[in-house]
């Protein structure tokens, strides 16, 4: 089902007694969620993403704006009539009911012609349980289940009445790292199998990148960018989006453009055709650095870190914002670099040396110093 948000705004009254402006949790949202897609609402905590989810679910009423499900205005419809399934961060399973009764709970509320008998309910519940692969645990109580299993029960309960929209609030944040990987694939699979339009909220960019069809990046109640995951990464609209997506994070330098030449501090690093002159922030993805003795960017080497398949060269530069520049290089380059270093005696712990990089043009983004909007990026 297609969801359209139109000028959606939610303001909370300021709690401070001295007055002060209202808190705008969701500020003038306009976007369209196509039918059958998996959408990730991504942003740091407190950016209003859960509020947005609650508005769609009907747990909160918007201050302004409308919400449409398939063209039907449901803004004033109470939560129970919207046909949404919501999975809470804490799962909110009823602790005194068995898994089976937890899953049948929404069905027991149905009235009129939709009313089912016990047998039909149990059938439906088993169907939903099979989908999330917990059909062997039906008689257990929630506290006899692991976190991952509880999560699945919560999803089954949300799915059992065949909602038009499935909403997931930080679905993976209570799981350990390994289970998180597994469960997010699971969510993807369930969403594909059911074809239900799904919106999930997360502050973990990796989670959002890995399973969403589309990412909505938010900050302070304002949408920063809506796009496919890879596009948000490759084509960030502003400095915030560039910083928020990608691990390790993007390296940000202060610098300037003069006559289509890019300077980081005083180092001339590359030509940027078409970029306007002026002071800029320069964002370079960790994979955008190539160790190169003739490279323009001269940094002080502070260490080399090998983590599994990745080798990072850590260095510092006076024009860099933050502590260390992290450059991820491929293994061949890394070997060549370390061997050269060993030969010259540079870059060991006792003798800090220098490292020069040239930059991969496609991994370099320029942002306006004031507005932080992106002003240049080499398009593919």
């Amino acid at each position: 089902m297609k969801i359209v948000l139109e000028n959606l705004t939610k303001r909370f009254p300021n709690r401070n007694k001295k007055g002060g402006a209202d808190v705008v949790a969701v500020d003038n949202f306009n976007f369209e969620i196509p039918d059958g897609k998996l959408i990730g609402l991504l942003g740091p905590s407190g950016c209003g993403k859960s509020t947005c989810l609650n508005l769609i679910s009907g747990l909160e009423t918007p201050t302004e704006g409308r919400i449409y499900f398939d063209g039907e205005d449901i803004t004033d419809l109470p939560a129970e009539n919207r046909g949404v399934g919501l999975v809470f961060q804490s799962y909110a399973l009823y602790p005194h009911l068995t898994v089976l009764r937890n899953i049948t709970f929404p069905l027991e509320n149905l009235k009129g012609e939709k009313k089912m008998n016990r047998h039909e309910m149990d059938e439906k519940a088993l169907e939903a349980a099979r989908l999330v692969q917990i059909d062997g645990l039906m008689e257990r109580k929630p506290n006899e289940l692991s976190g991952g299993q509880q999560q699945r029960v919560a999803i089954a309960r949300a799915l059992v009445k065949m909602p038009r929209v499935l909403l997931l609030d930080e679905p993976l944040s209570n799981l350990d790292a390994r289970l998180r990987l597994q469960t997010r694939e699971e969510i993807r699979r369930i969403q594909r199998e059911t074809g239900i339009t799904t919106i999930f909220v997360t502050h973990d960019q990796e989670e959002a990148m890995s399973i969403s069809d589309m990412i909505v990046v938010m900050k302070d109640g304002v949408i920063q960018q809506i796009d496919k995951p890879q596009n948000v990464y490759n084509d960030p609209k502003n400095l915030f989006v560039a910083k928020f997506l990608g691990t390790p994070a993007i390296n940000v330098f202060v610098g300037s453009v003069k006559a289509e030449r890019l300077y980081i501090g005083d180092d001339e690093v590359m030509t940027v055709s078409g970029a306007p002159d002026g002071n800029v922030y320069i964002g370079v993805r960790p994979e955008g650095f190539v160790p190169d003795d003739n490279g323009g960017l001269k940094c002080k080497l502070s260490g080399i870190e090998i983590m599994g398949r990745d080798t990072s060269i850590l260095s510092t530069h006076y024009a860099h914002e933050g502590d260390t520049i992290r450059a991820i290089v491929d293994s061949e380059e890394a070997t060549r670099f370390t061997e050269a270093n060993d030969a010259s005696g540079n870059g060991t712990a006792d003798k800090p040396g220098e490292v020069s990089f040239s930059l991969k043009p496609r991994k370099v983004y320029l942002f306006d110093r004031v507005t932080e909007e992106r002003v240049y990026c080499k398009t593919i």
Partner: protein
Amino acid sequence: MKNNGSKAWLYLLPALLFLGAFMVYPLIDVLIYSVEEGYNSASQSYYDVGLYNYSYVLHDPYFLQALRNTFLLVIITVPLSTGTALLISLGLSSIKKLRNLFQTIYFLPYVTNTLAVGLVFMILFKKTAYTDGLVNVLINLFGGESVDFIDGPYWAKMFVLCFYTIWVVLPFKILILTSALASVNETLYKAARIDGTSKFRIFYKITLPMISPMIFYLVITGFIGAFKAYSDAVALFGTDLNAAGMNTIVGYVYDMLYGDSGGYPSYASAAALILFVIVLTITVINLMISRKNVHY
């Protein structure tokens, strides 16, 4: 291990000594008194051992009256007070404004002395030469006839006693239940709302099971407390409860020991043990029922 065992007993010794001296020994003593026939506390003598004391107590019309009063009191006040407390707590937790004020007001009776409250009830209910009491004034206002609640018919006296008991135990129950209601996870309600659960079903299927351990606790302590009622009756009807026909089991025990008919520790012990058996039975039944219906 053996060494550990003896050490454990050593550590337990102080507690065991105290419990033994002040709990186990008196209990056994009561049991012994209750079977010693014609026991005289002055000469510490008795002439036979048997169940005559029990038989006497169970045939004593005053005891039977006390038994009936106590059972009525228990059956009426425990469900009513728990139910009322639940209703008030639900109301309290659904309002935001003035909530603290109301909570304080409802809690006031708890910190008020029983006898002082009894005095207030006397003023409300007692008929004197000058006034029929505030309640009777109200009854008259609606066209009813004055009732003597303190010296009048049995049902009127029972009504006042129950009313008073409920009023006295209510604050504690409200306190427990409001905190139990507050501890129910808010997201459960949200989840239920999303699923279109009606208000009544939310209460019946979620709230009630979630606070059932606390309700159970209140019912058990309520039963025990009501069975042991005494001071409430004294506060309302004075010390000669047998004359007023409003005695309770504990009141009967007290009368047998110290009252006008006093000096019979054996009868008192027998009555106390009968009370003990009744309370034990009721509590066991409660526990058995709770096993099915209480969700921890």
